[in-house]
């Protein structure tokens, strides 16, 4: 075994600079001569073969792990994109909220209910109400005999009721 470091460095300069001793250089050289004179045992051939096999196996594992890491990363990124896309679709989806339609009564005809002309509806209703009230008033008077024997005998109670029914029917027919 040779001492490359020894040739690269000027030991004498180093030791004179730091230890200021010629003897130190000699001590170092003698000590290293002793080391060179006693060689350490060499590693077994089997040991180095096993080390090389272990290194090859370790490199293989490293490559497999690298490949697996790449696959996991790709899958994670893809999953991230999918989740992001789903969230984006949910967030930006334009949802028009329709107001609930009021439940209309079956008694009132649809044409009247949906008519936007409130003035017309009111006039018609007022006319109807006035007619119904007039008939009701006539009917009541007749029952009470207010107009008995004064020229209205021909109008019977039945006729009045029929007239009332006709008016109502005409109204609801439009």
């Amino acid at each position, binding site marked *: *075994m*040779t*001492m*490359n*470091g020894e040739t*690269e*460095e000027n030991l004498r300069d*180093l*030791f004179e600079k*730091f*230890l200021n001793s010629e003897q*130190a250089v000699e*001590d*170092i050289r*003698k*000590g*290293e001569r*002793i*080391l060179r004179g*006693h*060689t*350490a*045992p*060499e*590693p*077994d051939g089997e*040991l*180095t073969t*096993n*080390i*090389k096999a*272990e*290194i*090859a196996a*370790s*490199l293989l594992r*490293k*490559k497999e792990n690298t490949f697996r890491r790449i696959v996991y990363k790709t899958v994670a990124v893809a999953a991230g994109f999918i989740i992001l896309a789903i969230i984006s679709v949910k967030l930006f989806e334009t949802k028009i909220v329709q107001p609930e339609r009021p439940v209309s009564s079956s008694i009132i005809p649809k044409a009247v209910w949906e008519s936007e002309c409130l003035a017309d509806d009111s006039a018609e209703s007022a006319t109807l109400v006035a007619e119904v009230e007039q008939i009701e008033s006539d009917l009541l008077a007749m029952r009470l005999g207010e107009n008995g024997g004064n020229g209205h005998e021909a109008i019977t109670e039945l006729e009045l009721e029929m007239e009332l029914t006709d008016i109502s029917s005409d109204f609801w027919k439009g």
Partner: protein
Amino acid sequence: MAKSNDLARVISGCKSGNAESFSEIVDIYASRAYGYFYRLTGNRETSDDLLSELFVKLVEKIGSFKGGSFDGWLFKTASNIFYDYLRDKQRQKKLFDVQKRQFESETIDAKQSGSEKIDELQTQLGRLDTDTRELIMLRFYSQASFKEIAAMRSEPIGTTLSKLHRGLKKLKKLMEQK
């Protein structure tokens, strides 16, 4: 120059994950790294384990080598592995001084046990403190310059020179006394 170019090519191959390049690195450095571990532990089995660990670490950390002295970088890793091994032993023994004495005496006793043939140098190295022994072995096996060794150990170059001088002087004395 050709040698350093070859080494640069091999290191580049290692960085690319080429198994052949790692095999070349093992062929180049196994002997020196094994000597380093053996002289520090005095035990072949432990040296086998530490050498395997060094090359496994090399595969893991080759990407962090950013140029400069590869020998220095590799032996810095070897040094860390050795100190990790010592710390692990210390954890097991709980008490540093007791463990250190035992570790050093194990090195010496190994010769007496006859399970391994230990040379005189190994016996006398066991009488040095761990830090000095590691410094001497780092200098000898890594073949790094004193400047690099001082940087590896994060200490001034004067301190490194002084410690190495004292350690080698003591080793020489011990070897002469045998």
